[in-house]
């Protein structure tokens, strides 16, 4: 059983008064420890895919399963615990110390203050953001904000990390460091589903996918199953 599974998922959205197909009969499987990267143009449905995978949005038809459980029924108990959805915007707390953002997230989930502080520090260390913690969020650059967002999600010890464009707006060196960080998290067993707006961000993924015109097209899953069983292709909707 895969950790996350999208089965024949369809999703439409309104765009200028007409319905646009974002996903049509999309199928995707992600196992623990897999890094899956999805590239698509702006408006192709990248973020919609992530929101469906995290259980934030419901599909029009089809099923999204997390460890065999339907996210439509169990989404509230899974999101924020077993699924970490990285938010890169910290509007409410832009003026406070970065570590507080992580601590507050843990307190909301019921952690004791001392435990929350310890776990927040640990998460920041894990993402290489030790020096980020004491600084104000408004002072952080793009790369540091990404690290903080990952630390925030990671502090809740999720089994699946969902992150929208982690390398958008970061310089090339930082891009590779963020990708290596995500790769290392996957190697430790956390499944990761991320979108990229730049095709170079697909490097090193276990599955690389493209999204557009309502369809997902993907690489074979590296070293897991034979190519023939893994096609994510589907017939283009006419």
């Amino acid at each position, binding site marked *: 059983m895969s950790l996350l599974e999208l089965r024949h998922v369809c999703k439409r959205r309104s765009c200028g008064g007409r319905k646009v197909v974002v996903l049509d009969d999309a199928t995707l499987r992600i196992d623990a420890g897999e890094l899956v990267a999805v590239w698509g143009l702006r408006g192709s449905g990248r973020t919609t895919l992530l929101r469906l995978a995290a259980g934030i949005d419901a599909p029009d038809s089809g099923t999204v399963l997390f460890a065999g459980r339907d996210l439509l029924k169990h989404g509230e108990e899974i999101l924020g615990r077993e699924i970490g959805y990285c938010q890169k915007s910290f509007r409410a707390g832009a003026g406070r110390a970065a570590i507080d953002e992580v601590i507050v997230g843990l307190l909301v989930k019921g952690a004791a203050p001392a435990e929350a502080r310890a776990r927040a520090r640990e998460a920041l260390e894990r993402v290489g953001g030790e020096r980020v913690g004491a600084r104000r969020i408004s002072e952080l650059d793009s790369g540091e904000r990404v690290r903080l967002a990952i630390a925030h999600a990671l502090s809740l010890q999720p089994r699946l990390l969902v992150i929208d464009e982690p390398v958008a707006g970061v310089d090339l060196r930082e891009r*590779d460091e963020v990708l290596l960080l995500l790769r290392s998290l996957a190697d430790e067993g956390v499944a990761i589903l991320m979108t990229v707006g730049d095709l*170079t961000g*697909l*490097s090193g*993924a276990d599955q690389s*996918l*493209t999204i557009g*015109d309502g369809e997902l*097209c993907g690489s074979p899953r590296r070293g897991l199953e034979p190519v023939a069983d893994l*096609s994510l292709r589907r017939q283009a909707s006419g």
Partner: protein
Amino acid sequence: MGGVNRERHVAPMQSSVNWALLGLIIERPSYAYALAQRFERTYGDALSLSSVSHAYAALGTLKDRGLIEELPGTRTGRQPKPHYRATARGLEDYHAWLIGQVAEERKRQKVFLLQLTALTRDPEQAMKIVEDYEQACLGETCTTLIATGDEDAPDGALALQARLIAEEKRLAVGAKIAWARYARSELKALANGRAGGLAGERAPNQ
């Protein structure tokens, strides 16, 4: 001497092995056996020498063409190991050959794309091929590992080389994926247009 060689060899040197060997000599002057070993380490399965004697033959060609010369004083001892270095012309020709590869690469890519898109008249079939091409390119991204290494370390040049090669591959494969996505979208529109046209033609009969 160099001028004589240049006149004698009017045909451009085609062998990739010879050019690669010249590149290694430009990087660091050395002798045949060591060059053959560096060749294997550097080019791996991308380019191969059939044997060490292949390296000797290639060095002979490079020397005849005036692209390399023996370092004075290295042909000594019971087992002389003459070291070779690049001549000024060797450097100049190597530079020109590298730049010439841009056009060669483009030609190869054009032939490939002509073959890949040969089925455009049958958009459904063409879409399938382009889709498989896109999948293959996506598979390539999975094998493109992110290069790491300390570029301030003694072997920092190698770390930089690895990073430059990886980045070029990422960009090149990325461009192919973006193209495949575009081509599929265009082929789909063509297929849909034809289907619409057929439906329109059928309409009066219905």
